[in-house]
């Protein structure tokens, strides 16, 4: 039986503007998504800002009621059996908030251990074990206000694991963390999955999803636009290549011309500090590259490289038109 079952889940936010002649505005954040996550699986939800990832997680952790559809976690309905779901899940989100700044890391963990009903005798050993796991042993008596962002994030992870949840929801846990911290976090998550914990992860970082996730659902505009293993998603653009051209100057105005070239399947511009990177997805790099360079005549160019498509290319392809 799947650990997480989501069927036609919808969530609409309603808001009103103005006091007189107030107008109601509905925003469909999640539009009837369905997916399943098996026990011990690390399932990724990928999508741009506002795609509906966090809203989906909030419904699964019982913080929001679905407008329609159904979701079950470990066989418990997230609406009817909310308390049973809460007992069995952990929730960790990224960013600076979500901790009591003026308390020590240890006191934060003690308080949440009480809220999750961790037995008094078990609290001490469990907290010590988790502090070791997340690398905060020795710093636990310091106030959280003095913690770095990475330390806070690791404390968040420890908090989410206090009651040994069977399912862990990680909502952009590595946001704003330095590369070393992010790598340690990925190692921690991978270690958790290896012990049988089911993880649902949302992230913006493609390499993170590629490295960690067993399966991924790409969500855009509130709908799932693709689902599969990272390899399966990459295969969607595997029949082509990617040409990257470093451009010094404004390449934006040439994009339409590049896009019009036969064999070009997609174009994106990534802004750098002193240059722009023109990313051209093609069905046949060898034939297309000279034509692309031709459209950039008169613009100072830097490095020109051809590479195989990555998960990020597949992701951009999938969410581009939504």
């Amino acid at each position, binding site marked *: 039986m799947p650990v997480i079952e989501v069927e036609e889940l919808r969530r609409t*936010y*309603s*808001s009103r503007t103005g006091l007189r002649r107030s107008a109601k505005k509905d925003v469909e954040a999640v539009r009837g998504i369905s997916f399943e996550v098996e026990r011990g699986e690390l399932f990724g939800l990928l999508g741009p800002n506002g795609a509906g990832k966090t809203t989906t997680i*909030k419904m699964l*952790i*019982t*913080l*929001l*009621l679905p407008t329609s559809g159904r979701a079950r976690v470990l066989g418990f309905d997230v609406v009817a059996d909310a*308390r049973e779901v*809460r*007992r069995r899940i952990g*929730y960790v989100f990224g*960013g*600076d*908030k*979500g*901790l*009591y*700044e*003026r*308390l020590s890391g240890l*006191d*934060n963990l*003690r*308080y*949440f251990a*009480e*809220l*999750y*009903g961790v037995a*008094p005798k078990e609290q001490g050993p469990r907290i010590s074990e988790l502090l070791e796991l997340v690398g905060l042993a020795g710093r636990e008596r310091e106030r959280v206000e003095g913690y770095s962002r990475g330390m806070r994030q690791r404390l968040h992870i420890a*908090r989410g694991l206090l009651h040994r949840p069977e399912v862990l929801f990680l909502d952009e846990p590595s946001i704003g963390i330095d590369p070393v911290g992010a790598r340690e976090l990925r190692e921690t998550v991978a270690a958790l999955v290896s012990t049988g914990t089911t993880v649902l992860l949302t992230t913006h970082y493609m390499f993170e999803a590629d490295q960690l996730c067993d399966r991924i659902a790409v969500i855009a505009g509130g709908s799932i636009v693709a689902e599969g293993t990272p390899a399966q998603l990459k295969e969607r653009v595997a029949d082509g290549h990617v040409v990257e051209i470093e451009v010094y100057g404004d390449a934006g105005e040439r994009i339409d011309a590049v896009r019009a070239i036969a064999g070009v399947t997609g174009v994106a511009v990534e802004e750098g500090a002193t240059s722009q990177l023109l990313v051209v997805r093609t069905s046949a790099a060898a034939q297309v590259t000279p034509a692309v360079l031709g459209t950039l005549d008169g613009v100072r160019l830097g490095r020109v490289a051809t590479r195989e498509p990555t998960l990020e290319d597949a992701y951009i392809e999938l969410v581009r038109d939504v």
Partner: protein
Amino acid sequence: MRTSLRIFFIGGMASYRALFHWLTPWILIPTFVVAPMFELLFFAFVGKDAGVGDNTFYLMGNGISSAAIPCLFAMGNTIANERYTGTLGLLLTSPARRLPLFLGRALPVILNGFCVSVVALGLGALLLHVSIPAGDWLPILAVTAVASFSCTGLGLVAAAIGLRVRETATLSNIVLGVLLVFTGVNVAVNVLPQWMQSVAQVLPMTHGIEAARELAAGRSLEDVAPLVRDEILIGLVFVAIGFAMLVWFEHDSRHHATLETA
């Protein structure tokens, strides 16, 4: 059951420390000792000059009502501060039973309010040269504790509103003003207009202040028992209303996503 008791006592105290740990002596003493004392002296001198009441009248009224500062603001902020620290969502997705979770937060607040009142009464008695027999202080302190409890009940209502709106301090300020005017702190309830007297009967503090004045005048605890009973009943009603509102607004927050939009 044991888990709920731990959440009530240990969790309640932990959350109080978590949310009000910033209260250093530099903030605590001016807020809880100096400001109530200025208020007491101001009303005592004005009232005495106007021939409205004696020092004991103002000492009991202002001393007991000084508990309202922590009882309304600290209790009201127990939810609003969770929103500020970004822990409200975590609190609401925890499996902790709501009764011990929310009511446990009231216990340290009641204690806080009681201590503020005791200091105000003690210091005020010294400054205003009010002499009360030593044996009468104990029942007065008991009434003070009851008034702190009932006022915290009203604070629980403010806490519940914190689930629906972001800023509760404004509301607490208004309620504090209402208590000051309606509950007989500085003007006896029986000289207020009839409608205000009716409102006063259902507010916390009214009966507690009256009971304390009776005790200071030499009556026994038995004599003021009906007043104490009414004060307790009003406190219980407000606790029940506050808790019901907390449960309702929590459900409403899941339904209308008000934790994000309020």
